[in-house]
């Protein structure tokens, strides 16, 4: 409990120190905005370094877990410095407004990613069926093959194609690839329940052999649904970086231009 509170406490203390230091320094140091700007840029580069750290995983630079925590809390601290740098005002110049908007977008996407990185693993753990993202297509293919084999095997034994027809009509698209992405992201089980309900409705038309196969088929549907859940969640977990990282580099480009422009135009000014 104490350890969990350490990071937020440290962040709050650092933020309070930043605000306090700014309030004390602002009347005395006319160029305090330059200082907050450089601190902000340093923080942004440090936060970006987390991405580089992941790329050079072999280097003994603390664990990725610690880096993630530092990245998250320092990112929040950067928003405080960002507010101080802007003096809590919305910039009106195009260059500064774009830069501020990029920073805000990076921050918000980061916070969203942080929340996802906490919420999704919990959900996946609750659902069970852990599997690496890259292996999902292979396992999915295996499930499809098992389902098809099950249905095909039931035909000669039962002498009926009711289950096979149902599979072709309703389950084949489900097993052939990833399904119900949006439902899984939104936490809805409606699609799964719909399929299971249809299988349940089908049972009245099945003989004993097909009935037995339908039970196994329902289990496979559940397994496939869990696989889809993993895929949707893991893809979401990876997908938010498609926003966060590109925006970060765009922001750094604008920040570099901002530094050059400020220095070129402020020579001699406050």
């Amino acid at each position: 409990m104490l350890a969990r509170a350490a990071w937020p406490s440290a962040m709050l203390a650092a933020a309070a120190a930043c605000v306090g230091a700014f309030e004390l320094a602002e009347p005395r140091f006319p160029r305090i905005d330059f200082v907050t700007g450089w601190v902000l840029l340093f923080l942004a580069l440090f936060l970006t370094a987390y991405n580089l750290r992941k790329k050079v995983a072999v280097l003994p630079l603390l664990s990725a877990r610690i880096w993630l925590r530092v990245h998250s809390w320092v990112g929040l601290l950067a928003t405080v410095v960002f507010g101080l740098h802007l003096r809590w005002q919305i910039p009106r110049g195009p260059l500064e407004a774009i830069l501020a908007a990029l920073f805000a977008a990076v921050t918000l996407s980061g916070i969203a990613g942080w929340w996802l990185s906490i919420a999704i693993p919990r959900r996946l753990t609750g659902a069970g069926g852990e599997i690496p993202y890259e292996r999902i297509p292979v396992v999915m293919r295996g499930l499809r093959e098992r389902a098809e084999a099950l249905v095909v095997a039931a035909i000669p034994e039962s002498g009926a194609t009711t289950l096979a027809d149902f599979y072709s009509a309703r389950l084949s698209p489900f097993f052939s690839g990833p399904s119900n992405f949006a439902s899984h992201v939104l936490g809805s089980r409606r699609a799964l329940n719909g399929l299971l309900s249809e299988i349940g409705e089908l049972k009245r038309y099945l003989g004993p052999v097909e009935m037995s196969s339908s039970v196994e088929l329902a289990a496979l549907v559940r397994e496939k649904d869990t696989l889809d859940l993993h895929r949707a969640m893991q893809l979401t977990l990876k997908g938010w970086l498609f926003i966060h990282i590109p925006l970060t580099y765009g922001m750094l480009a604008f920040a570099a231009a901002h530094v050059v422009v400020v220095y070129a135009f402020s020579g001699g000014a406050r």
Partner: protein
Amino acid sequence: MNEGRAPTPDFDASRYERPNSKWVCGHSREGCPCRVGPSPSGQCRATTECSPRLVLQPGETKGTWACTRPAAWGGPCKTGPLPDGRCCREVAPCQPERSLRARRGLVTRAALASSVAALLFGLSGGNRDSFVNPRPLSRSHSGVEFARLEKGHAGGQGCTLCHTDSATGLAGLARSAARASRASLRPASLVSEHPKDLSRMDRSCLACHQHKAFHQADVAEATSCSVCHREHQGAGPMAAVASAACTNCHGDWRRMAASRKLSEALPAGLFAKADTPGFVHAAPRPRWGYTDLITSFAVDHPEFRVLRDKSPDLNTLKFNHRLHLSGGEVGTVGGHPLDCAYCHKADAAKAYMAPVTFEASCRACHALNFDPGNPAMTLPHGNVAFVRAYLRSLPLQYADFASRALGMNATQAAGFAREQVRSLLRRDGSGELLERSVFLSNGKEGPTPEEAGLKGGARSQVQGCALCHEVSWTASEGPKVTPPQTPERWLTLASFNHAAHSATACTECHAAAASDRTSDVLLPSQKTCARCHSEKGGARDSCTVCHTYHNEQPAALAKEPLASTP
């Protein structure tokens, strides 16, 4: 523990995936990637599932081909290699796909390229001025009139009028930034309390605002214009100068100590205040200059110096405010009590009080009548010679009065004049005594006329010049009246606007009703001002409410060229 959870799917955990690879097999989507995978450049390398190995038994020359498919991929196949040594299981070629990570890198590069493109577009050509402008300029430095001035002054260069580097292209911007980072914006200056300098941008300011660079000769370090005057704060009037701009120096003991040292060393002539209009109370400059530490008007602004030094009003005019404001017999005009505004009227600008004049404020009561029998006969005011000439021409003055005011003819007027003069001479004894009575009597003391049997110490009936003025008499020169000098300005280092204080009664600030001496200085104290001009009082307490930074540079000071730092 695992109740309700799905079991972990059965998959080969020993197979090593390469998430960092840029390309993945095109068959991965179907769940059957090939074993080799694409080349680093994204080319499909699919051939066969294995490369059969020739196995030679001892004594055998031909040997047999063995399947080498790894166990992770199913192990040796049942069919085995073809007789010619080729693998029997060909892998269908695919179109490799970028990995998720590679796609993210692609999006990142695209975003970076887009940002750079947007920056190049914004920073180049005609877009730059509006693109980099952090906030609109004030109306002082924008609009049609400024454009006209700017065109005439600098040929319509836009931002370059102030930012001399803004027209030098992208490379020029970078060079300018680099120069600034080594000079005026060097790292140490960013955490300096006084990093300002007079630089190229200040040159731009002074090109139009000439003679605005000087504050005081004892300023230890020059201050950039932009320290106080903040541009690009939005349209409308330019942002007011914050008190912090002043207290940055005046609240810093080190700077004030440096100024004090300079002030004591420099000749006093360098600190002569530029001419203030009107007659001002002359307060000598302290030897150490104005170097008191001030952080806020209400907190530690020193008492106004004329009050702190208890400097008396040196005016020789005798005036008793209490007597005139008491509301008694003295303090009424036409039955109405006197008030401050009867004598003190605002000047044309309504900022200061116009000088009090005898004719407007005093004559109604102090008519300068010397002959109670003829109240309309009054002396001129303001010039001793005129008064003496008037008295020495009394027969003519009476005759003129008789003809103009009483409608007598010349003979009657001459007779009237003779009679009146005779009467006066009977009262005062002689013409010289009349003159002495007029100049030296103050209503209490002075030459005594002999009228009505008043002898010895009896009071004069004439309120002579000495009632209000300092008058001396010498045998050689006769009467001499010291001209009164009523200061129009007491606080010569500050400005004041009475009109802005019209909602406040005069007596709230000026304790005139309690003053009975001319030497009393009726200025309100600093604390009186701070009652309103403070955070608590609510009125503005900025330094610029009263003070102005810019002073005329004394000619004795050499015009030093501005330091030219980027």
